[in-house]
């Protein structure tokens, strides 16, 4: 739907909220992450709870390449895609043989491996302090034009363009013959095999593709905050992207993840502000994670098909 991108395009012009460019950029980055992730979650029906790792790998790849190899923009960004895809591809070789909770369990375990590596391999990743001073240098064609990415507005629009292209690619993937097969796998894996499809390959490919999107999102995020930290890799972030997909209705609609990411990221700051005020008023400190956890529980129990699912009255999670 074109109007989503039109909305995002004009967002910086909106009164009051338009100045939160960094937030808007973050929303688009996570939307990109979530849409790519939905190829695996919603379309193939595989719940990975460790994709924060590939986001993080993308984030660190961009940072490390920028600081140590080539201080550019496109090169680190492209390599962040490669990094996400590569490691997702490696892990995918193992996990694609499984399904159900065994699959999820393994994705969590492998996600954590990368987290600890990022945390402990200080020489490479900066350990607990992470990497910093990852600047956004100007991009453009020498001699023709130059865009200073250090300006938040410019970076917002570059991310918008990348978000648009990535979403189109994801759309094409799920509407291709490949997309039909992965949905078949979700609906009835045994039957899909009996039609002659090498299901292992398709699961692996789906895992790897979603890893590529995750890596890209990670790279964009590093440039947004000009740094890379290990916290993006831990399982809370993996849980976040799953929740975004679910909340928005990614199980019933291609655009669900975008809605979910938007709501999730924008309300995060709002919510913590309210909680601080409530804590102050009640003279009792309410832990933000308490509310956060309760929201998870609430969504699972009462809006399992997500907001778009609720609106369209879908009881069962059926994606087209």
């Amino acid at each position, binding site marked *: 739907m074109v109007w989503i991108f039109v909305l995002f395009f004009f967002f910086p012009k909106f009164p009051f909220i338009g100045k939160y460019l960094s937030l808007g950029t973050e929303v688009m980055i996570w939307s990109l992450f979530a849409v790519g992730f939905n190829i695996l979650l919603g379309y193939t029906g595989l719940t990975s709870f460790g994709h924060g790792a590939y986001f993080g790998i993308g984030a660190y790849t961009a940072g490390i390449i920028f600081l140590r190899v080539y201080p550019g923009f496109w090169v680190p960004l492209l390599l962040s895609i490669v990094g996400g895809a590569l490691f997702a591809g490696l892990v995918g070789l193992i996990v694609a043989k499984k399904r159900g909770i065994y699959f999820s369990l393994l994705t969590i375990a492998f996600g954590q491996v990368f987290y600890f590596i990022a945390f402990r391999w200080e020489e490479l990743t900066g350990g607990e302090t992470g990497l910093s001073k990852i600047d956004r240098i100007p991009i453009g064609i020498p001699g023709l034009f130059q865009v200073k990415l250090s300006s938040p507005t410019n970076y917002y629009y570059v991310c918008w363009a990348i978000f648009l292209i990535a979403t189109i690619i994801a759309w094409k993937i799920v509407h291709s013959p490949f997309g*039909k097969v992965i949905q078949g796998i979700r609906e009835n894996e045994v039957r899909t095999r009996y039609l002659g499809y090498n299901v292992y390959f398709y699961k692996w490919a789906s895992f790897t593709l979603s890893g590529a999107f995750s890596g890209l999102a990670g790279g964009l995020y590093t440039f947004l905050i000009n740094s890379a930290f290990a916290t993006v890799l831990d399982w809370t972030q993996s849980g976040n992207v799953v929740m975004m997909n679910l909340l928005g209705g990614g199980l019933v609609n291609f655009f669900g993840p975008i809605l979910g990411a938007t709501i999730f990221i924008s309300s995060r700051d709002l919510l913590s502000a309210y909680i601080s005020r409530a804590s102050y008023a009640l003279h009792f400190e309410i832990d933000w994670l308490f509310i956060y956890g309760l929201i998870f529980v609430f969504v699972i129990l009462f809006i399992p098909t997500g907001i778009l699912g609720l609106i369209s009255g879908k009881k069962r999670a059926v994606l087209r």
Partner: protein
Amino acid sequence: MAAILATEGLTKNFGGLRAVDSVSLQFEEGKLTSVIGPNGAGKTTFFNLLTGLIKPDSGKIIFKGEDITKLPIHGIVRKGISRSFQIINLFNEMTAFENVWLGVQAQQGHGTEFFADSDRFKSIRDETFRVIQETGLTGKEETPVKLLSYGDRRILEITLSLTPKPTLLLLDEPTSGLMSEDRKRISEFMKKISSRLTLVAVEHDMDVVMSISDHIVVLSQGSVLAQGPPNEIRGNQKVQEAYLGGQYCLA
């Protein structure tokens, strides 16, 4: 008179239970063989072994002279063996059209195209419509499978198993749960397709078995009790005894 499919000493145990006991069989090309036997005789397990869903503990499966014992399901299907399921095994949330589409798409060698618009593949589309028409489901193809009648779903189950264009088709209780009218529909369909491929069917309906089979194999407790043309089996003492405990009459 060639054996298109042969098993040698095929055995499968589940815990202490010997489900398939050293079965050595040959299936002739072009014929329609029925596999019958009382419940629990190991018929479905046998099919599961033949198609790679489970791996045998010992024994071999030879298809057209090639040892396929270790192949994965999709490998066996690609070699030319397909099967239908006793419990209807379709893509329930999808339409009949989409179900057949998936099968046709695989047979035509597609699936790995990431960026192509699947609606553009005319050859898949045409073939899908042709299959839908051949099996009499025209007009119902846009209905989600879960809403179709049981009889239609049974037909679709067999149709789907035909989409890989197999040379050998295994049908696991194709008339199960159907009323006599639909049973006739299915058995006529089976007779029609048996002219162009080898059929092996597990069946309980003796009328169907006796009328369409070229050859009958009787399994009991995991091993072959008897085999031969319908007349022979009809008069076979051992077979009658095996069924006496059950609810079937070989009149």
